[in-house]
């Protein structure tokens, strides 16, 4: 009879190595390769004896350790010795271990923070439901495809007709999205008329790009489009979710 045991063990070969180094009270910068290799291999043998499926990464690391060990043991040919003077075969592994170690530390610090809903709590409002297609405050209903198409046609009709020399223009949906978001932010929670997003004398290309930006925002769930029931009335936009700008902040670790 054979068993298949699955244990929550080490996250990966580096995790295991760090554990072994710590257990032997070694310094990452000065690993006793033969001792560590021996321990590492015996752990792998235990796992094999238990019939535990080891990730291939563990085997790769075993090979790496043996390779480093052999490199240390073997005398170097004289011409190579001159070349590689001062280069420690453990260096690459050391660098990887140290990098991993510092994120382990970072994780420990993170774990010390008060967790929301575990250590600290905030006011818990029911999620804002915009599932209804009706805005009770304004008495407007959500617009459909047909109304949008009409509005688009209307905007295109109002756009500038260029006679004569045509200049190249460039508009990006990303920029338009940010532009619209900032307009909506200024309006706080109020509705914004669709028309006001299209300035006077706008070119056809800009109309198209602006429209795509509005559709994209609606698709992503940041805005909702409303209209007062009948086709000819104005379409309104309302922000329903805080917009997170793509490419947010980043910290630069020293």
């Amino acid at each position: 009879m054979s068993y298949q045991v699955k244990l929550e063990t080490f996250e990966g070969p580096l995790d295991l190595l760090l554990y072994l180094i710590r257990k032997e009270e070694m310094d990452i910068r000065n690993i006793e390769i033969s001792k560590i290799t021996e321990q590492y291999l015996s752990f792998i043998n235990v796992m094999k004896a238990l019939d535990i499926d080891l990730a291939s990464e563990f085997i790769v690391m075993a090979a790496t350790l043996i390779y480093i060990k052999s490199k240390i043991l073997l005398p170097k040919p004289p011409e190579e010795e001159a070349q590689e003077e001062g280069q420690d075969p453990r260096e690459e592994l050391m660098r990887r271990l140290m990098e991993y170690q510092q994120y382990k530390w970072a994780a420990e610090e993170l774990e010390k923070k008060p967790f929301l809903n575990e250590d600290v709590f905030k006011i818990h409002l029911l999620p804002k439901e915009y599932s209804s297609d009706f805005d009770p405050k304004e008495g407007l209903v959500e617009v459909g495809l047909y109304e949008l198409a009409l509005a688009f046609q209307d905007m295109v009709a109002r756009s500038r007709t260029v006679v004569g020399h045509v200049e190249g223009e460039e508009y990006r949906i990303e920029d338009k999205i940010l532009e619209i978001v900032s307009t909506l932010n200024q309006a706080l929670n109020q509705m914004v008329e669709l028309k006001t997003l299209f300035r006077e004398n706008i070119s056809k290309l800009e109309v198209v790009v602006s429209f795509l930006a509005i559709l994209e925002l609606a698709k992503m769930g940041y805005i909702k489009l409303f209209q007062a029931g009948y086709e000819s009335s104005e379409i309104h936009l309302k922000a329903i979710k805080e917009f997170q700008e793509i490419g947010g902040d980043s910290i630069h670790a020293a």
Partner: protein
Amino acid sequence: MQLEHLESVVEALLFSSDQPVTLKKLQAVIPEASLQELRTAIADIQKNYEMSQRGICLEEIAEGYQFRTKLDKASWVKKLIEAGPMRMTRAQLETLSMIAYKQPVTRIEIDAIRGVDSSSILKILVDKKLIRIVGMKEVPGRPLLYGTTIEFLEFFNLKDLSQLPSLEQLRELKGREKSDMPLFAKDTVEEAELIADQSSNLTKSSGS
């Protein structure tokens, strides 16, 4: 606007929002008040709640302000609130740290540090809204770039990312206290060795 009156307005606004409210937003709602007045009002509210025997305090979270329960009240609140906390495994916390410090970062870069594939952990973290896709790296294959979210700051009670210790600080702080580090995987190994012993005994006895 009278300062006392302003304080009560700010307090009402902060109380009614379940998301951190930024100074900018406060000023948009109360255009009569200057930024300086708003800051003073917030500082006064903070002091008020801290000093008195209150169960809540005003915290600076995700570059905004939010009322939160005080730390020592957790056991009571947990009895009332049904929603359980988010469970975080060691692997998830480590991966999250890598993203917090290295963002924007690709999966491949995280895999390289951890030495194992991270796709399933990244998916869990995205589902938990602690990280999000922030773009695509302009290299062949255009891999996705990940970064932390506002929810990340909210979850860990952080004002902004600079509140995390720098890697330099970590090395100085942690490099010394070796013995203090939890050997969280220790039990697993000892258990494994024990089971291995027992299983070899088993095979011996079953063979005889």
